[in-house]
């Protein structure tokens, strides 16, 4: 047992059972003392395998764990149709029904299983927390350390929770004559007992409840998540067998939601027959439903109708066994639309083979026309296997698809070491094929996903310095792995794992990271594909524990340098531990081997490490109000809404409060928007005189208005006082920001200098501050609409938060944002091409042959801008032409001193010299 000194047991003697609910409160207070037990309760698990609670079982035989529990609020919101909610708590032998507590927000979840108590550390459920918000008490998972390694076929199991609505009142007429009748009538699950039901004295010896059929119209069928062959394990977290199911179900007092926990045998079977394909299609499907809620159902229906496909094919065909479809290792989905794509896989195989022979480079993508729809297929070849993703062009433009397949392959490699053991989550598809009929935040999400998902970076939230410090300290403490008497040192053992680094996410934003870039990106992409980041952003996670062995490219790359002096990565194994609590998610990368002890077999999550991570999260709980404040407070740099720049926009007045600049200048925005003005503005540009801003812009607009009707006020028309005031403020601001920039430059990461001291300032002061410091564009108006800054060295990008974007709602703005992202995608495709060329050049530098033939392409591209014009969609006034607003989308690639990409979107009226300024400012910020 050297390797698992603190493995946790799952069963303990009954005298530790909390006898009744009243004693549970007390238990909460003294589990501190019980922590020490955990060491001594080593693996008694095998004795009680059959009756383990479901969350213990979540640890799979290969040591992996994906345990997710939504918070109660969330579970309810997912099932809003519940008329009256009764919360039922089951314990092993008795069922307690509690009513009426709901209204006070007091809820009892089936949280307390006896052994959870023992293993909880103080950090899991601090008293303060427990008393204040009982509401948030969640199930605490017990993590079983799988001490007995099973060899042979690796079986991947998954458990799923399905919430179904049951109404026992309907059944009053029906008399339960047969056994298991309730299961059938109430839930709609048909189970046929093989043997006549007999009561067995021993606990847990009842027959497993295999779903043999589903009753048409029953809640089980309606849920769509219960499949024939699943095994019902628990009802509202009470283990059920054929023995006690009736009893448990009969205790349901009235109409309510019941959580059913199933073991997914389908996946198990499939994987045992084809052990090579480690994938969990159906499982992830359920997971998806869990993550996305009910909307997914409708979306999935849509998805099935759009032709798309994911295939994993082997290129080595065994011609002897001419089995049908033998080359397909994996294929998803199974729908009519994608069937066609599957049937033409010969094309993909041939192309892959032939084009490589002819051109010497690997095939990357191809386009097909199917039923009048263009479909792009991206290829990813690895040794003799070929991964294919095909999606309709109108949903996913080609550059995005290419990024996507790269990401998928990266994730798969991260998870399995190579593509050979493949699995696929759908998580990436629906997010993209999302219908846009949803709230603005969603829309922003969907539109930005086009670009942002492809970026090699993580969304970063700049935080005030003190908070940053606190986070850093907390993470450093964790990484030090000094767990006092809980640590292995205490027991004089070799350490199990070294913590390589950790990164902390809040609501899907990275707020602190101590991981190298490659690892960070690997983890971020993993989280993205599992939909964890949006989950943390929108739904409060009750609890999330993920544990799996991973294969980070950064550590596993063979060192290019053969020099023995150079540091070499130890030949260790790597494990990823993700713990989520509420909005927080902490990802920790652990190394076994190296200076820690070698991992043997497939170790499961070690509860001490999990607990320590949780402690860290709890420590940080106090900060989250500050982070929230940052999320909702006015951003830096501050943004404008496109609609404000359209004359005749009625929302303008409402929005002015958030735009202190505009509120003082109601007329200015008109100037550059009138079409007549624009034209002359173009023509009268003096080519050689480049006056400094802002006189240049005003000069231009004056010229424009000579020919026009003088549609708007030029900036000169602003009352002088205001003008001067602003100017002085502006200069103050720049001084201040300059100073602050200096201060913060030393930091490796991105503090927001502008929020250092002003978190508590009153509103007006704050507004002033914002105006002074956050405006990146010059000239009287703030003309910045949106931005994305990608810093590839750190692997992060900065972009306005959802809240910021939500504040700027309007009719045009969402379209603008969407267009911005799509445009950036194509700009980025050009940049990527440049980067490829640069890399080639760097490689060829020795034999300098490539320089001559580069003349035919535009590379290297360093800046790329597109000017768009837009007008309101519904323009009712027939007599007047709709107002037009013009804006730039500009992307810039910085190769030196380090690789950075910046994309900004701003109004046309900005003087071009200011663009340079904006770039520079960003540059300074990101340093």
């Amino acid at each position: 047992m050297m390797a698992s000194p603190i493995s946790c047991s799952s069963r303990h003697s009954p005298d530790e059972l909390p006898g009744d609910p009243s004693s549970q409160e007390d238990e909460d207070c003294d589990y501190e003392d019980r922590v020490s037990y955990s060491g001594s309760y080593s693996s008694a698990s095998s004795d009680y395998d059959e009756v383990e609670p479901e969350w213990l079982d979540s640890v799979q035989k290969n040591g992996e764990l994906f345990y997710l529990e939504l918070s109660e609020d969330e579970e309810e919101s997912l099932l809003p149709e519940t008329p009256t909610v009764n919360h039922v708590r089951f314990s092993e032998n008795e069922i307690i029904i509690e009513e009426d507590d709901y209204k006070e927000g007091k809820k009892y979840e089936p949280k307390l299983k006896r052994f959870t108590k023992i293993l909880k550390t103080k950090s899991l459920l601090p008293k303060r927390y427990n008393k204040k918000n009982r509401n948030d008490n969640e199930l605490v998972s017990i993590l079983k350390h799988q001490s007995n390694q099973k060899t042979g076929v690796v079986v991947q199991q998954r458990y799923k929770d399905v919430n179904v609505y049951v109404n026992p009142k309907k059944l009053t007429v029906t008399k339960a004559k047969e056994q298991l009748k309730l299961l059938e009538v109430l839930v709609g699950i048909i189970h046929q007992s093989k043997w006549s039901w007999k009561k067995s004295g021993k606990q847990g010896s009842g027959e497993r409840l295999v779903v043999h059929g589903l009753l048409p119209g029953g809640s089980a069928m309606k849920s769509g998540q219960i499949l024939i062959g699943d095994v019902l394990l628990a009802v509202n977290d009470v283990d059920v067998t054929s023995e006690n199911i009736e009893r448990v179900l009969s205790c349901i007092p009235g109409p309510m939601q019941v959580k059913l926990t199933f073991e997914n045998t389908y996946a198990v079977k499939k994987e045992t027959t084809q052990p090579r394909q480690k994938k969990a299609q159906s499982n992830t499907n359920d997971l998806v439903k869990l993550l996305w809620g009910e909307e997914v159902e409708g979306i999935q229906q849509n998805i099935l109708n759009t032709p798309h496909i994911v295939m994993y094919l082997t290129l080595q065909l065994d011609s002897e066994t001419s089995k049908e479809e033998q080359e397909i290792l994996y294929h998803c989905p199974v729908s009519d639309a994608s069937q066609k794509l599957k049937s033409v896989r010969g094309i993909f195989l041939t192309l892959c083979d032939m084009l490589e022979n002819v051109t010497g480079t690997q095939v990357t993508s191809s386009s097909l026309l199917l039923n009048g729809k263009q479909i792009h297929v991206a290829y990813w070849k690895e040794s003799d296997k070929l991964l294919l993703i095909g999606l309709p062009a109108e949903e996913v433009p080609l550059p995005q698809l290419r990024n996507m397949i790269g990401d998928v392959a990266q994730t798969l490699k991260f998870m399995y070491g190579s593509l050979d053991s493949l699995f696929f989550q759908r998580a990436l598809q629906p997010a993209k094929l999302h219908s846009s009929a949803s709230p603005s935040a969603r829309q922003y999400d969907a539109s930005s996903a086009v670009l942002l998902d492809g970026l090699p970076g993580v969304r970063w939230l700049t935080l005030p310095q003190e908070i940053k410090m606190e986070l850093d300290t907390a993470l450093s403490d964790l990484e030090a792995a000094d767990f006092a008497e809980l640590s292995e040192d205490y027991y004089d053992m070799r350490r199990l794992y070294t913590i390589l680094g950790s990164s902390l996410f809040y609501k899907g934003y990275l707020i602190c990271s101590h991981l190298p870039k490659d690892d960070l990106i690997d983890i971020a992409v993993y989280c993205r594909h599992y939909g964890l980041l949006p989950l943390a952003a929108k739904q409060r996670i009750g609890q999330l524990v993920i544990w799996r062995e991973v294969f980070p490219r950064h550590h596993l790359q063979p060192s290019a340098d053969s020099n023995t002096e150079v540091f070499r990565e130890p030949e260790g194994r790597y494990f990823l531990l993700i713990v989520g609590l509420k909005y927080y998610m902490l990802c920790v990368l652990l190394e076994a081997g190296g200076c820690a002890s070698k991992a043997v077999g497939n170790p499961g999550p070690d509860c001490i490490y999990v607990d320590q991570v949780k402690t860290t999260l709890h420590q940080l709980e106090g900060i989250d109000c500050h982070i929230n404040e940052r999320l909702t407070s006015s951003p830096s740099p501050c943004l404008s809404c496109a609609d404000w720049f359209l004359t005749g926009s009625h929302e303008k007045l409402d929005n002015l409060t958030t735009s202190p600049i505009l509120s003082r200048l109601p007329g200015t925005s008109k100037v550059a928007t009138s079409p007549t003005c624009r034209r002359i503005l173009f023509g009268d540009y003096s080519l050689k005189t480049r006056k400094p801003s802002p006189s240049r812009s005003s000069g231009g607009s004056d010229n424009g208005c000579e020919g026009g009707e003088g549609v708007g006020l030029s900036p000169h028309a602003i009352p002088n006082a205001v003008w001067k005031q602003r100017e002085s403020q502006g200069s103050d601001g720049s001084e201040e920001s300059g100073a602050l920039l200096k201060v913060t430059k030393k930091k490796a990461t991105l503090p927001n200098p502008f929020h250092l001291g002003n978190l508590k300032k009153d509103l007006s002061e704050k507004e002033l501050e914002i105006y002074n410091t956050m405006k990146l564009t010059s000239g009287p108006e703030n003309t910045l609409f949106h931005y994305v800054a990608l810093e590839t060295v750190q692997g992060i990008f900065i972009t306005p938060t959802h809240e910021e974007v939500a504040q700027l709602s309007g009719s045009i703005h969402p379209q603008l944002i969407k267009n911005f992202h799509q445009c950036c995608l194509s700009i980025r495709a050009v940049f990527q091409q440049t980067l490829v060329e640069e890399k080639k050049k760097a490689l060829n530098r020795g034999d300098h042959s490539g320089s001559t033939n580069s003349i035919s392409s535009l590379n290297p591209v360093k800046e790329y801008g597109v000017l768009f014009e837009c007008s309101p969609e519904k323009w009712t006034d027939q007599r007047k032409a709709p107002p037009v607003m013009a804006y730039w989308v500009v992307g810039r690639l910085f190769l030196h001193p380090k690789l950075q990409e910046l994309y900004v979107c701003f109004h046309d009226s900005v003087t071009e010299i200011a663009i340079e300024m904006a770039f520079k400012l960003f540059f300074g910020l990101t340093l």
Partner: protein
Amino acid sequence: MGEEGTKGTVHLLCLAASSGVPLFCRSSRGGAPARQQLPFSVIGSLNGVHMFGQNLEVQLRSARTEDTTVVWKSFHDSITLIVLSSEEGTSELRLERLLQMVFGAMVLLVGLEELTNIRNVERLKKELRASYRLIDSFLGDSELIGDLTQCVDCVVPPEGSLLQEALSGFAEAAGTAFGSLVVSGRVVAATESWWRLGTPEAVLLPWLVGSLPPQAARDYPVYLPHGSPTVPHRLLTLTLLPGLELCLLCGPRPPLSQLDPQLLDRWWQPVLDPLRACVPLGPRALPAGFPLHMDILGLLLLHLELKRCLFTVEPSADQEPSPEHRRRLLRAFYTLVTASHFPPEPGSPEEKVEDAAQRSQVPRACYLVSGPEEPGTGWRLVALQSGPRRLLLLSAQSPTHALRGLATHTLHALTPLL
């Protein structure tokens, strides 16, 4: 197959769709025709994948490797054209348009009937040889850009109205409505009816004239891919001055002999000086002394409704980069902005299937800065769309923020010309 050897090559394959028999293969390398050919097995499998898909109602359109793009296109279920290009900066848009032009050229010289109803493959092969010259000119580096833009390359003569008058009078006297003056493949002046020719032939006819070896007079049978794909017309060309040819498109009458020297003299002697001034115009496109800003190294002006374009890389010819490089830059930039931002030209509905819904956000201008990091180096390209006109400029020195002003200014100056 040699891997290194394929760099920068374009292979064009033409096959009979039903039988899969190759009708011809043309290759070019580094802009010049090359003999290097793809092995037969590769040709077979390239055609095979496409056919396989078609049998299953899946139409394979294109495939890309890291440096090569392949585009398939079949015409009238009878001819399959495949192009495989590893030229740098190649794009599907360019290749698709190339295939359209190639098929147009085949129809122009052989007629649609022969191509859709193949009775004798060997005879067709022989007949198609006549089109090699024209097709090769599409594959190689050309001074023209009509193959890519699908607009007629034009030049602006100094005294256009005089030439126009003479041309109309001459065409009338010769008994045809279709007449044009062509200098090195670019149209100097044309009659109303000539301008109304459909898309492929309007570009193809001057291109054909430019690609043929110089002769004093020709009587050339042509099919019009758009207007009259099955009934041949006669293309009569008369060399007025070296490099300057008069083209007439007519039916069986008049015979070439009828266009005697007297008729020519009567109409063209009075405008001999303007004609002379046209001859060197070819690559310059703009009349001498036209005020262009000195920063401009090359320009492409398109009129999307008239389907005409002006393309020149002559300004400041003494500066870097070479004209060839400038042409390539402008071509690449045109392809980029057309494929990714600007709406396609009217009349090419098959391209750009994507985001028709996006149209409420209309792109107006576009710029690109390329080259190394150091300031003052590299190229700047700017595109501007205004009404039916689209202007693309190549510039070396202009700072980024002046690009749009430069483009706007230039477009205004050029507007009266096209």
